[in-house]
């Protein structure tokens, strides 16, 4: 056996007998590195005759190939063994708590406003807004509510000056006035927003949310009003049928005026909307009073239409089973987490309003 062969055998033995990745790396250096065994053998070629050279080179290459194969399989074997050992040690109690993911929430009132906008968008309404601070004219006078009229008693108004000319709007109806004054008919808008009345008890908060609706065009009549509200209520409560009744009422800014009740029943302490023999008042509406149109520079001989006002908070309470109006504004961490909505849960008309 030549020295060369002996050396090869030695390397083979070393490789075969080891189970240690460091040793394997050392052997690899000894054999294959720049100054390793294989290269050193190739360097010898120069001093050999052509024939010898051919034979020896072929021997080196053969040996190299052989060693490489052994090395590779050995390396994989040891790596595999090492990893298996490592995995064996890596045991984690996965019942320990996960990292907390802090997800925010959307307030139910905001969610409901988005739902409402989604529904009315479908039938061509656009969203308008107005300021929270209003003047007496837009809040009352333009809306056909004269000075010193008992109808004003229904609104416990917050005033910002002694002369009672600036106030916090008591309803979203001033948005009607602003919209009509600044634009040209037809008008087809909804206006959600904050409203204020100096009232605070079990069922009243000094601030609450209203939705105003206004549709003025040449031939808009009470049939359209009925159809529009019926559509809205059905879509909002996501039911196929809704029991609804219009009761004549009085608001200075609409005539004829109506209050709308929806049917409901109680089942297992839960309210079922749309059926049953009990009635729940949910909104006020009517045909916009000609005086209001005149005040807003719209000719009542040509244009007519309807308006409505809905309590948004109340709708949210009914739809999502929230019992206490005051809790909407108390910012209780538990409440916000429980009743709030995932920010990714955006109501859309192709997905549907609620998840």
């Amino acid at each position, binding site marked *: 056996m030549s020295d060369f062969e002996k050396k090869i055998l030695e390397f083979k033995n070393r490789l075969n007998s080891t189970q240690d990745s460091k040793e394997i790396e050392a052997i690899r250096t000894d054999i294959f590195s720049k100054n390793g065994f294989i290269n050193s053998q190739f360097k010898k070629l120069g001093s050999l005759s052509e024939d010898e050279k051919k034979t020896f080179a072929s021997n080196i290459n053969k040996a190299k190939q052989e060693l490489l194969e052994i090395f590779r399989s050995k390396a994989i074997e040891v790596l595999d063994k090492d990893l298996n050992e490592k995995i064996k040690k890596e045991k984690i109690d996965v019942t320990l708590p996960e990292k907390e993911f802090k997800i925010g929430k959307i307030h139910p009132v905001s969610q409901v406003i988005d739902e409402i906008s989604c529904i009315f968008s479908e039938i061509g309404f656009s969203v308008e807004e107005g300021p929270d601070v209003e003047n007496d004219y837009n809040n009352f006078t333009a809306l056909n509510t004269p000075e010193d009229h008992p109808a004003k008693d229904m609104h416990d108004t917050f005033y910002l000056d002694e002369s009672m000319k600036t106030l916090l709007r008591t309803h979203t109806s001033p948005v009607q006035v602003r919209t009509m004054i600044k634009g040209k008919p037809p008008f087809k808008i909804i206006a959600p927003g904050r409203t204020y009345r100096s009232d605070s008890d079990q069922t009243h908060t000094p601030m609450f949310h209203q939705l105003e609706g206004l549709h003025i065009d040449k031939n808009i009549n009470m049939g359209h009003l009925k159809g529009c509200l019926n559509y809205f209520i059905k879509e909002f409560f996501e039911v196929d049928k809704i029991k609804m009744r219009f009761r004549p009422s009085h608001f200075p800014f609409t005539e004829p005026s109506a209050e709308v009740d929806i049917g409901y029943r109680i089942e297992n302490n839960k309210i079922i909307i749309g059926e049953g023999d009990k009635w729940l008042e949910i909104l006020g509406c009517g045909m916009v009073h000609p005086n209001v149109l005149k005040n807003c520079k719209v000719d009542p001989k040509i244009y007519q239409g309807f308006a409505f006002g809905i309590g948004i908070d109340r709708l949210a309470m009914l739809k999502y089973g929230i019992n206490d109006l005051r809790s909407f504004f108390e910012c209780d961490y538990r409440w916000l987490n429980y009743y709030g909505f995932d920010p*990714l849960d955006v109501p859309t008309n192709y997905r549907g309003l609620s998840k």
Partner: protein
Amino acid sequence: MKFTKDWLDVHLKTNKSESQIIQKLNSIGLEVEKVEPVKNELSDFIVAKIIKANKHPNADRLKLCDVDIGKKDTLKVVCGAPNARDGLLTIYAPPGSVIPKNGMKLEISKIRGETSYGMLCSESELKLSNESEGIIDLNDKYKTKIGKSFFGEKKGKNVIELSITPNRPDCLGVRGIARDLSASNFGKLKEPRKSKVKKNIKHNLKIKIEKNKNQACSIFGSCIIKNIKNTESPGWLKNRILALGLRPISAVVDITNYVMFDLNRPLHAYDLDKIKNKITVRNSKKGESFKALDNKNYTLDKDMCVISDDEGVLGLGGIIGGERSGTEIHTKNILLESAYFDPSTTRKTAKKLDLNSDAKFRFERGVDPQSVTVGLDSAVELILEICGGEVSKFDVKQTKKFKNLEIKFDPKMVSKTVGTSINTNEIKKILSNLGFTVKTKGKFLNVKVPSWRPDIFGEIDLVEEVIRIIGFEKIKSIEPDKKRTKPTLNYFQKHFHLAQRSVASKGYLETITWSFTDEKINNKFKEKCESVKIVNPISSDLNVLRNSLYPNLIFYLEKNLNRGFGDQALFEIGPAFTGKKPGQQITVVCGIKKQSIDEDSNLEKNDLVDVFHIKKDLVQSLTELEIRKEDFKVEENTPSYYHPGISGSIVSKDGNLVLGYFGALHPKIISNTFGFEIFLENLVEYKAKNKKTKESLTFSDYQKSDRDFAFLVNKDTRAQDLTEVIQNIDKNLIKQIKIFDVYEGENIPSDKKSIALKVTIQSDHKTLDENDLTNISKKIVSTVEEKTGAKLRS
């Protein structure tokens, strides 16, 4: 407005049942609020059980009893009876009830320092016997009756309570309700009874309505009734008065009240013998005062309408009578007044004096000016029937003539408004049944409005009358068009919507807090804004409009802390007010974050909230709103409610608009709390001015290289300035600059700090060679050193 079915029967001949009537009333706009059994005087007295008779802490002879009255909670009642003991079944009188023996009305009162909610009764107090020793001791039979009325509730008769809208004063009288029902085919309105009373005696009291500025009284009708015998009212009348929720007083008073609720015709009875000389209806002088029937003294302003005699004010016209001329049980001669007072003036006076009465409630809504004599007739007949006496001729002083309004009415208006065709004959029939006089004139109807309908002014009012009687259920519903011609949300609203959900997605809970707040807290946040005070706040700690969203957010954050929730992130999107004029408000998104560190938890390696945390949330939300890093710069000046050293403002690149603030809140306001604000109007204004369309994406696949630099700079040098200088050297080649270390301390002068940054260099056109890279690196070093005074650390 309350009434009973049998009272309605006085005016309406109908075969409809009570429940049919209730349903009909609702459908014609007379909303039924409540239906409940008539209360009699004794139904207040309830069977009760003493759970525990405790000793009164301050009085030996009194006991402080816990009383079960069949409700969830027991009540505290102070009792002096020696037989009050644990377990005793007895009779309880609640506050507000009247003790039959002495007519005393119970109130919640303090007895020797202990509050007593009502009274336990003896037999004599309830007029059951003369036994006054101790309270009633009921036998065991009553054990099951705790909470029930002792005398039993009379079943059968119901009081129907209507909520009458302010436009319908005529329905504040039973006759008006009957008229509406008859117009709805619910029976026939009976003709009023013709008075057969002989008016024999002379009306010898001088009465004058003075000509004053804005004289509220335009009609003053009256008569004198002599030699009456005032008495307790007969049963039927008492029952009606009780049905109204009033207490029977005497026949004369009960009759005036009865007529008021029967015909919506307020009347007033004076004791004639107490009137000095004559009656003058005039405006008051400033400072005049009188004692009213509610036992309170009122001092009047100038120009309030008063009824007076030679001695002074007798009463306030249309509002309340005076004590001096009030009738009593032994009154012999009376003056009966039936007048008309102007709604607006009456309302103003009552409002100023904070006075409410059933008469005022009616006059301010509008009483039928033509009902003056009808009212007198009706009352006179009853007084004579019950109290006897002789009546004078009626004296009616009238300064203004009432003329019925006439309306030219196009009956097509009805169909045009409701969308359903209604026959003209039906329209005519309905209006006639409601008391309108209708004449056809060509295509139009000439409609004369009855004097009891002050709410009818024009055609649209008549349309409403017709449709409410026909019934809203007859209107055919028209399906809405699913057509959209305008976008639903405008540019601003889209941003509002996106900002709201963007911030929520960073882990913040959305809150909605009041638009008003406590002035004391608000002052810390108002900066240069004026406080906008509410004249009539709901409470003194909600007395100004908020200038910032922080005061309320901090208030509720602290409330939650007290509830035991340490880790919190809250936000609100809503108005902050900059002045008190309409429109002086801005839309702010305000987030607030507080972290509590759980010292015990090794598992929960807290990701500590610091200023960069809040900055991250803010910048990410801005990015989502498409305000990119190149659109803004960070500056250090922030409002005083932020920590001066740990806060920044986000200003648009052109320096004109503040888009937001972020930072630690000032430790004097709240400790270890971070917050941010986004000013949505500014943001949207900036975006609208700098609208960008997305350019098509280009990127380079040539080799990129990173070069690290560490510069020694003055301590107050801002990282942003350094990166800006580098970025500007070559915007094409320098793709990214990342600060990876800021170091102060050992090996560095105390007024310096080291900023280490990694610059990514890449060309879009070729692979840069060593030479190119060296050149750009040199340029970076030299430019930074030149422009910022920094030194490259070696």
